[in-house]
């Protein structure tokens, strides 16, 4: 006869301990499990296409590993990283990448802000002007590079031919001279991406509280005072966003450089991504290319951190928080 309680209710059988599976779940637990279950495909996707290749790239960077010479594969520790800093061409590529990024993004921020201020007032002309200004940003950088290469060619280029004939710049064309090539690429990048910078900053300007600006005006602040003491501090989050986005993008510049100069002349326009693609996809030097990729990630992370700290410090100094 089975044991019953005084109330006649069958007592609950003692369940064996089976770990978290058998644990009674609260509503919060179930919800968490459900959310995890729903997110699992996305997490799996990120692991497969993001984290796993990244980890593999990190691992390969410690090997001398060339796909077309698999027999010579060997663990070499940090030698690939050391080789990058020992090689003149690679060092030049690092310097070029920083010069390109800092100059290009700096110019884009300045001119982008100017454009955003000009387009701030809501008018039909400004809306139409903005639409036209965004056209360069819709063209793929590879095509932009090809267009400028054709324009700047010394023999047939619409611009290059007349510049060469007028004796302006090098006789062989602006993209073929070590002194001018990188600057031309910076200007091409500015031409393409300044409107995007302006768009991000314009979105920030449009979201500024009108009452604060009105209060400044009512208190008799000059336009410059309103800009430096009201607009700029309030715009810091937008500036940070624009800078981070463009810095990360500019640091990975590849297409326009590859099709215009290929990194030359004499490595004057070589960048980390051009070097990585050449090593990885042209020579199948996977170990060395992985090391270049990892260094690029490290540099980008460092720059993003520095940017964050600078903006936070500026925020504290200006807004006192």
């Amino acid at each position, binding site marked *: 006869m089975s044991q019953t309680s005084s109330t006649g209710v069958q007592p609950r059988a003692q369940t064996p301990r089976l770990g978290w599976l058998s644990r009674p779940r609260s509503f919060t637990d179930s919800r968490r499990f459900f959310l995890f279950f729903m997110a699992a495909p996305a997490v799996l996707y990120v692991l497969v296409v993001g984290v796993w290749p990244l980890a593999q790239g990190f691992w390969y960077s410690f090997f001398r590993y060339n*796909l*077309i*010479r*698999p027999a010579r594969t060997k663990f070499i520790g940090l030698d690939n990283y050391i080789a990058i800093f020992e090689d*003149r*061409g690679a060092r030049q590529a690092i310097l070029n990448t920083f010069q390109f990024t800092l100059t290009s993004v700096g110019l884009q921020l300045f001119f982008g802000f100017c454009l955003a201020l000009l387009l701030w007032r809501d008018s039909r002309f400004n809306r139409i002007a903005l639409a036209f200004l965004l056209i360069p940003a819709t063209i793929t950088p590879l095509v932009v590079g090809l267009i400028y*290469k054709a324009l700047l*060619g*010394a*023999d*047939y*280029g619409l611009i*290059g031919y007349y510049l*060469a004939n007028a004796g302006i710049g090098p*006789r*062989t*064309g602006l*993209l*073929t*001279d*070590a002194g001018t090539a990188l600057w031309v690429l910076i200007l091409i990048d500015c031409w393409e991406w300044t409107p995007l910078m302006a768009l991000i900053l314009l979105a920030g300007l449009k979201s500024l509280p009108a009452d604060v600006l009105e209060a400044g005006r009512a208190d008799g602040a000059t336009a410059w005072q309103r800009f430096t003491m009201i607009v700029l501090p309030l715009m810091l989050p937008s500036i940070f966003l624009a800078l981070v986005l463009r810095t990360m993008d500019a640091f990975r510049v590849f297409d326009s450089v590859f099709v215009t*100069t*290929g*990194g*030359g*002349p*004499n*490595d*004057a326009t070589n960048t980390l991504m051009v070097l990585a693609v*050449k090593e990885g*996809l*042209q*020579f*199948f030097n996977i170990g060395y290319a992985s090391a270049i990729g990892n260094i690029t990630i490290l540099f980008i992370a460092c720059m993003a951190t520095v940017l964050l700290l600078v903006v936070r410090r500026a925020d504290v100094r200006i807004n006192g928080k």
Partner: protein
Amino acid sequence: MTKIANFRLSKTTSVLGASLLALMATTAYGQDKPLAGVTLTLASQNDQFGAVLAKLAPEFKEATGADLKVEIMDYGTLLTKTTAYFVGDTKGYDLVTMDIVWAGAYAENKYSVDLTDWVKRDAAELELDDIYPVILESLGQYDGKYVAFPFAAYANVLAYRKDLFEAAGLDVPKTMEEMVADAKTLTDPAKNQYGFVANGQMGAAVAQDWMQYNSQMGGSILGADGMPALNSPENVKSLAVYKELFADTAPPGAIEYDWGGREESFRQGIAAMMQTWSVGAPGYSDPAISNVVGKVGIATAPVGDGVAPEYGVGGWGMAINADVDAKQQEAAWTFIKWLVSKPIHKEFNMDGAGSFMRKSQMTDPDLLAKFDFLPVIATTYENGNGDYRPRIPEYPEIQDILGSAVNAVLSGAVEPQAALDEAQAKAEELF
């Protein structure tokens, strides 16, 4: 009398009968077409021969029953894509057009089927005696083994403007020294007329053209020991001459020219002279793309004073992917034999492939009527050198190192000696 037509067949009998007839026809077709049902996929360089290969596909199907799919791509894509396929042991392509300079890498990594035994077995069918030895050796073999079979050979020749030479009272240059002097004489920037043009673009373009001139001036990429000798005195001197030619006699934008830009410059009439692969020669007499129709002469390339006359030979072999199964390999070999057979290869060239490689083609009346420069190609092949670009596994890296160094010299960023010293140090690390 009962007529056959009076018999009424049931519907089922009719269908069965028709099926039987169809089956018999298919069997007969299968016996007639040994490769019926087979599909061959070919990765081709986008040289002139690429389009002609695609054009010949229906004819190959007619002859053998096999379908031929030709995928045409540019040099960089072909190299990257096929190497990735070989490394991944995929069976994406049955046949691959192999540049002469890839032979070392193909042999070392066993990417392609070793055709040596098949070539020996089918020597009579291939009519090997009719193919120039330099082509058989350099376009197909590596260390005595066939990693591919030659199908598109090119001769390095001098293309020059007959009208400009006659007007200036100049003879066609026989030596490099004469060529430099003539180039200077024929340069007049005020008339947008330049004496010389060559590839200047960083990378393979400038490296390959300079290696050609370097060889003609007595230079060499490898030393007698097979190790890099990039900064030898001969190489430094030839690079200085190459720079001089660019600075004094080439169109200003030539430093950005690859093969296409160089050819375009010549066809537009801007340049008076250039060395080029024979494959481009038919284009000079095509009024649709050339401003210099009837004004171009083709001659053997000049060589340095005192240097033995050896002319550059290049081109493509057809390799069979070692990863595909035996049946596909056999079918691919059938295609190669068909393509290089005398009648088909003649048709291949008549259609504009520009890939002459048989001795009989040099005297063929039909071909001669269309391509009057064939005797120059014959002389080039008879004294040909297919190894002035070293066909070793490390060639791609050496080419890239030289491509950067020579371009840097042409841009004025560095002197020849310093550029080649640095290139030599990099090249040594590869060995």
